[in-house]
């Protein structure tokens, strides 16, 4: 490995890139689009408390008011009492739908009276299946508060106390916080994979590899210069994504030095993997196909958009064989949870895979024919 050779090739790559306005535009604008798009889509569900429309048929009895303030104390929902006299339990569901309220609650007439006589009462929660997150949270909050009231009615003492929930890590996490490491991982995967697969087959077809094979440049030097370029690109696009997330959506991710190894080893792995995929195939078409087969499952199943812990068990096991999972998990550990030891074990997995894939890519990528 001659650093001067790598430097000379790096200058060629950088110049080619800067002189291709479309490529430059996409690599700088695409991260903003990604963060902006997903931030906008998910920021509604990520905004802390869910507004719960309450139809109080119990004539604002003291107990019903206690129940509603207990609901508000959960910080999961915010009870909003419906003042419109035309709304009745019979047309409540329609009214909720017409006014775009995802969730509602009916406190029935005789709630306080029945409760004091130890008679069962129904607290009906209305949910909108299209907004699963708000619905789940509303049902969860109402049944939690109802349990507390039930205990009181039975004069029971709650043996298991759940104090107010503490957020994992040091900050309060919203969906956008989780999305930023995921999307950085997404671009670490996709941008080198797609272009290396293409370069591997088109440079071979155009004879540029043959041309380079006639110079003292080695394949390892060539691949290293590409990796260096994608490391640089990753730093720039990660910076853009974090800035967009923080300034546009109020994300609070930790920008620490601990990210640096992931932003280096990640591109190291996926530039090599793209080159390997492009080298084991004979034609550009089959190279693109192999590239897609590798890239697409990883793109969605590595915890890019949703935490892997929310997956069904089988898919979780599958996610754990995808190298991108370790990149994203590692960055989550570093940026969200400040958990260095888990991050280090993730880093070890990526680094070992990167070294193996790099060696295989050099082995399979021939720049002259037999």
């Amino acid at each position: 490995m001659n650093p001067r050779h790598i430097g000379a090739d790096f200058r060629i790559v950088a110049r080619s890139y800067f002189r291709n306005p479309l490529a430059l535009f996409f690599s700088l604008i695409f991260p903003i689009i990604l963060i902006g798009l997903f931030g906008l889509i998910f920021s509604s569900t990520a905004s802390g408390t869910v507004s719960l429309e309450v139809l109080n048929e119990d004539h604002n009895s003291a107990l019903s008011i206690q129940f509603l303030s207990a609901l508000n104390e959960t910080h999961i929902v915010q009870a909003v009492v419906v003042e419109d006299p035309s709304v009745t339990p019979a047309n409540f569901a329609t009214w909720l739908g017409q006014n775009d309220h995802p969730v509602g609650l009916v406190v029935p007439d005789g709630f306080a009276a029945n409760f004091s006589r130890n008679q069962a009462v129904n607290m009906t929660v209305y949910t909108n299946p299209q907004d699963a997150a708000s619905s789940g949270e509303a049902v969860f909050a109402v049944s939690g508060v109802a349990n507390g009231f039930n205990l009181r009615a039975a004069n029971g003492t709650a043996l298991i106390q759940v104090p107010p929930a503490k957020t994992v890590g040091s900050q309060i996490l919203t969906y956008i916080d989780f999305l930023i490491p995921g999307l950085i991982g997404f671009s670490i995967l996709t941008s080198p994979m797609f272009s290396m697969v293409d370069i591997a087959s088109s440079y071979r077809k155009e004879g540029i590899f043959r041309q380079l094979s006639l110079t003292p440049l080695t394949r390892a030097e060539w691949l290293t210069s590409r990796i260096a370029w994608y490391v640089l690109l990753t730093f720039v696009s990660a910076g853009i994504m974090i800035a967009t997330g923080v300034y546009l959506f109020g994300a609070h991710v930790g920008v620490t030095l601990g990210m640096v190894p992931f932003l280096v080893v990640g591109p190291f792995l996926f530039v090599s993997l793209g080159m390997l995929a492009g080298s084991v195939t004979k034609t550009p078409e089959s190279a693109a196909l192999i590239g897609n087969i590798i890239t697409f499952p990883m793109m969605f199943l590595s915890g890019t958009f949703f935490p892997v812990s929310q997956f069904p068990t089988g898919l979780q096991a599958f996610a754990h064989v995808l190298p991108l999972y370790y990149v994203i998990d590692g960055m989550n550990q570093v940026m969200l949870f400040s958990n260095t030891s888990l991050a280090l074990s993730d880093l070890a997995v990526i680094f070992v895979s990167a070294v193996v894939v790099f060696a295989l890519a050099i082995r399979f990528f021939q720049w002259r024919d037999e």
Partner: protein
Amino acid sequence: MPTAIEVRSLVKRYGTLAAIGGVDFSVPAGTVFAFLGPNGAGKTTTTEILEGLRRRTSGDVRVLGLDPWTEGRTLHRRIGVIPQDFRFFEKITPKEAVEYYRTLFHTDVDPGRLLAQVELLDKMHARFDTLSGGQKQKLGLALALTNNPEICFLDEPTTGLDPHARRAIWAVIRNLKREGRTVFLTTHYLEEAELLADQVAIIHHGRIIAAGTPGEIIRIHGIPPRISVEGPEELAGYLRAHLTASVFSERGRVEVELADRRDALKILSAIEESGIPWQAFETRQDTLENVFVRLVGQMDDGALKSEAPG
């Protein structure tokens, strides 16, 4: 004169297909060697084997005393190669390309001087994708010269170029020879080989069918020169009666084969003595092109063989 390239019983097979079926030749250092053949004859395969870009099936190949396949990295520092249809990074300028090669080869060549040598100085800041075909080939030539090579391999360097660009490349090749370098050239332009080459080999279907200087090939494989005049069929009849040499008559021209140049005067006086009016005297010499077409045609097609004159 030391030998730059030595090839003995070279064979290249792709599966059962023999692309090169046992080829022998050698190129003395400091000469221009032209490798001729129709498309698909095995020119490029042979060239790539010599350049270390392709592995041979069997036979012995030495370029500057090195085995091109196993000692390619050492060899590549001493040779320059322009592959057929040279391509480079699209957004890079000739000046940057030369600087790139200069760093890779650890030389201190001046990009301006090198690009002037191949007449590309005015385009030194133009991006590769804006260059014409001839300008691209010239850049290929410049890059091949960055490491001051002892042998230059040029695979069809002028294919598809306009006559002006072609002449510019020829000038560079002549200059390479003047500088004492060995030039290995493949072409299917016979004129190019005749003008530039010291030695020519014609390859067809993976075998060399003729080799030597252009003059030798014409002498051995060509038809003898003829004395040709414009004149009627009647003149041909007269000459057949009075001369032992073969006489041909076609489209108002009468031609007499000149087996020995000392017969020239005898033939001319016979024409004059006939008293039949004649004019436009000339001698007709076979060209490398005619020889090539005839040799390749004979091997390909029996019909062509029987049509060939003489």
